[in-house]
């Protein structure tokens, strides 16, 4: 039985169930990581993904708007967030990945996915989404 068990385990595929309703790889490019430092202009605590909007100064000093997709409110809350955790005017540094299509959202923001956020007090916190789809087949 022990041999059978080990043989069975060799077929197991465990995937981290992080909340998302779409595939990360279908929308964001793991080869396009970005880190931006800016000021929060809006934090939308909304489904299916919360969005953190940040104004970032480019090399010419011009303000550029980014919209970072994060996880859903329920998933963020279970990781220790509240809707008040980040607010307008906060200085943040966000690590994430740009959207594959390079297009902006309808409000003109550069579209990206946030993986972690460093808050003004230096704490680096989780923000991410995506991964397992819960389906019977591997991706």
């Amino acid at each position, binding site marked *: 039985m022990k041999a*059978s068990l080990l043989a069975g385990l060799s077929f*197991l595929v465990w995937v981290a169930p992080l909340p998302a309703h*779409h595939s990360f*790889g279908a*929308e964001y490019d793991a080869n396009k990581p970005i880190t931006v430092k800016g000021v929060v202009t809006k934090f939308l605590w909304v*489904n299916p993904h919360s969005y953190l909007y940040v104004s970032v100064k480019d090399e010419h000093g011009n303000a550029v708007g980014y919209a970072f997709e994060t996880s859903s409110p*329920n998933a963020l809350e279970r990781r220790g967030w509240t809707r008040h955790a980040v607010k307008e005017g906060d200085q943040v540094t966000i690590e994430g990945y740009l959207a594959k299509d390079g297009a902006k959202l309808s409000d003109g923001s550069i579209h990206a996915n946030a*993986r972690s956020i460093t808050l003004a007090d230096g704490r680096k916190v989780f923000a991410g989404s995506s991964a397992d789809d*819960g389906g019977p087949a591997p991706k």
Partner: protein
Amino acid sequence: MKLSIIPSVFASAGVLATVLSLAPSPGFAQSARNGAQPSSQTPRAQAGPGGGMLIGPEGDKEAVPPPSGPTPRLSSGKPDLTGIWFAPKTIRGEPPSMTPWAEQILKSRNSKDDPEAHCLPAGVPRMTPYPYKFVQIPTLLIMLFEANIHSYRQVFTDGRKHPDDPDPTWYGDSIGSWDGDTLVVDTIGFNDKFWFDFAGHPHTEDLHITERYQRPDLGHLQIQITIVDPKAYTKPWIINRVSNLATNWEIHEYICNEFNVDTEHIVGR
């Protein structure tokens, strides 16, 4: 052999602990809303490619393991599956054996067209990585999904049969019966609109799914799922899943269509 492997996995606490620890998950994290006390056990979620072990800004809402204890029972004496379940971990076996039709459909699909990404139901047996609640009485099991578009399934355990000609639906028509302490849920009457996964494994309206639910103790729910659809798969496709009881959680509202702004930007594949 499949049948005997899986219970053996769960019979071994050491193996189970090892396997669970391989799946960094928010599964046991405590909700701030629920005011749970932090502990210092399960590893925190991994943030993704290159990510570290990070938590949210309000502090360390560490995980608690599922509780131990005997299987709760209904007034009928059968196991009571009631509870809030989370960390649905799917044990995927060998790849499905597809018909040429299914292979062609799979090849043609692009995840930007995945109905679930457009806030349509994930169907059965696909699970979204959110908690779900079972409410059970002897004649009925209700499955309430936080996500999977915040919908529900009804499993009738009052002895009724399937309708003769059910309308095809996203969740099908489910009836349940007992095989000892195992609840066997038989579902037909599916539409062919939902996908089994991001990849787009297809099915037809002939899809027939059998789910075998076991609650071997207070804290765990084990499910063996058999997918039969001869037009799409040349032999039954069997997967196994385990969920843990989330004692201090509640399911919350999740209205997917509220702000689904990014779908148009999904490139796919």
